[in-house]
């Protein structure tokens, strides 16, 4: 597992996925090619399922484009751990089934080489030898995440004939 550490604040949606591709790339594999292109050109070549991103405040600010959250989910990112997230990105991540962890303490404690793991149901993130609690998602939103995203969640509900 690799931990991608981008300690800066305000990493915006253009850095995560440049606006010029918004109308040419919409599927996971297309997005992957340009994911984080202007922030870390090595990212898309290195990322593996199960990897984690650790970052600063206001991650994902800017556009409502969903390629960043969809792309990170497609890349298999296990969780993004940040001091805080921008709100549309936060919503979008839930909709894509991407786990976000808001934990300034965990970000603070992290140093290069630490092992990191996350338990969303327990609301617990482990960095090196320390555990930090984070507020778990409320009811229906945790279900959306567990179902793998909003549309998967809706499909299931439609499948069960509840709607």
């Amino acid at each position, binding site marked *: 597992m690799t931990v991608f550490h981008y300690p800066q604040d305000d990493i915006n949606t253009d850095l995560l996925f440049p606006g010029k591709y918004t109308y040419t790339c919409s599927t996971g594999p297309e997005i992957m090619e340009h994911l984080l292109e202007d922030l870390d050109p090595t990212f898309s070549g290195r990322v593996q399922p199960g990897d984690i991103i650790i970052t600063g405040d206001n991650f994902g600010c800017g556009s409502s484009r969903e390629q960043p959250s969809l792309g990170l989910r497609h890349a298999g990112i296990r969780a993004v751990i940040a001091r805080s997230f921008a709100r549309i990105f936060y919503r979008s991540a839930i909709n894509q089934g991407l786990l976000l962890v808001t934990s300034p303490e965990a970000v603070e404690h992290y140093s290069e080489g630490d092992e990191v793991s996350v338990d969303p149901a327990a609301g617990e993130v482990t960095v090196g030898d320390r555990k930090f609690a984070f507020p778990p998602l409320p009811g229906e939103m945790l279900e959306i995440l567990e179902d793998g995203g909003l*549309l998967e969640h809706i499909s299931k509900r439609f499948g069960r004939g509840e709607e």
Partner: protein
Amino acid sequence: MSETFAMKVLGRATGKKVSEGEIVFVEPDFVLTHDNSAAIIDKFESTVPGGKVRYPDRIAIVLDHVVPAATSRNAAGHRQVRKFVREQGISNFFDVGVGVCHQVMPEMGLVLPGSIVLGSDSHTCTYGAFNAFATGIDRTEAAGLWITGRTWLRVPATINIELTGAFAGGVSAKDLILTIIGDVGSGGANYKAVEFNGPAVGGLRMSDRMTMANMGIEMGAKIAAFPSNIRTGEYFRNLDIPITGAVWSDHDAIYERTMEYDLSDVVPVVAKPHKVDNVVPVADLKGIGIDQVFLGTCTNGRLEDLKAAADILRGHTIASGVRLIVGPASRNEFLKADRQGIIAELVSAGAVMLPPGCGPCLGAHQGVLAPGEKCLSTANRNFRGRMGEKDAEIYLASPETAAASALTGRITDPREVAK
């Protein structure tokens, strides 16, 4: 009592009193999407094959982002949207050339005071200018809303911005909102509602309010809202729509924080690359040479903005070596400006007119930058790569500063150029 605007609108939509931090489920009055509808249609169709949208009358689609199509892929997307709106009976569809979605929605009377509008575009917060609770969502959520008609919202805490005084000459609403964003920071209002209050609100034109609400997201805000007042009344009278749902916070509403601005203290400012909260007085940047000026977008592409620029450019020619690109926010605004002779004045001064739409704002076409170039833009974002080239620089400013800078070829304080 003691309720904020956000609590009242969300409370009414859920039929009970709500408190801050609570998650509520609502059925929004409108769901807006634009060129990205093509991608949303794919999601919709793969989730509910052959299905119908839940509320066709609550869906609005505006083609504005890459119009007319720049590539055959864009064209295919547009065609897919036209077919879908026909099949689904979506009547609020506005094809290429009507304008930028955030201008078109209120123009068409689709944004009402006290209503809830969600849009798969981050600048959906613009409708706060009309006393709506309006905010951005992603494409997936828009597809979900087409299917179910409902979603969740967290009741936000509110930041109160009290406005007093009046603008000095050469200063406008863009300078004020950039100044506020510089103070609050690009994430300072994250998850929060912003309310504009105070005696100066009454003096702000609807176009000023739209410029300000539009940029709420640039400080992270969920919504940025104005009260409904005489000017709001006029706006809707012109559309022949009675205002029935307007609401506003109680006098004793509890705010997380109150900030005060005297408009007469505001000076022309610029947001430097590559962050919107990187705000400095124009005076600090004097003399920086620019290659392109872009006047337009959902932030500053209205009649009032084009007129402010024309007032400075009238009878002059822009500096050689500078390109002035002008994109009216909508067909209506284009026509109004044309009838007043403003378009002819801009073109005579050297402007290149674009069709109503987003133009080069998102870096897809119609004026993208070369590596190393500098653009002074009236848009709302100066992120690295936003106008198509990561090694280009975008400076954000008012229409007045844009016009003054086009005249000299350098970043210029509009108060310094003789009319």
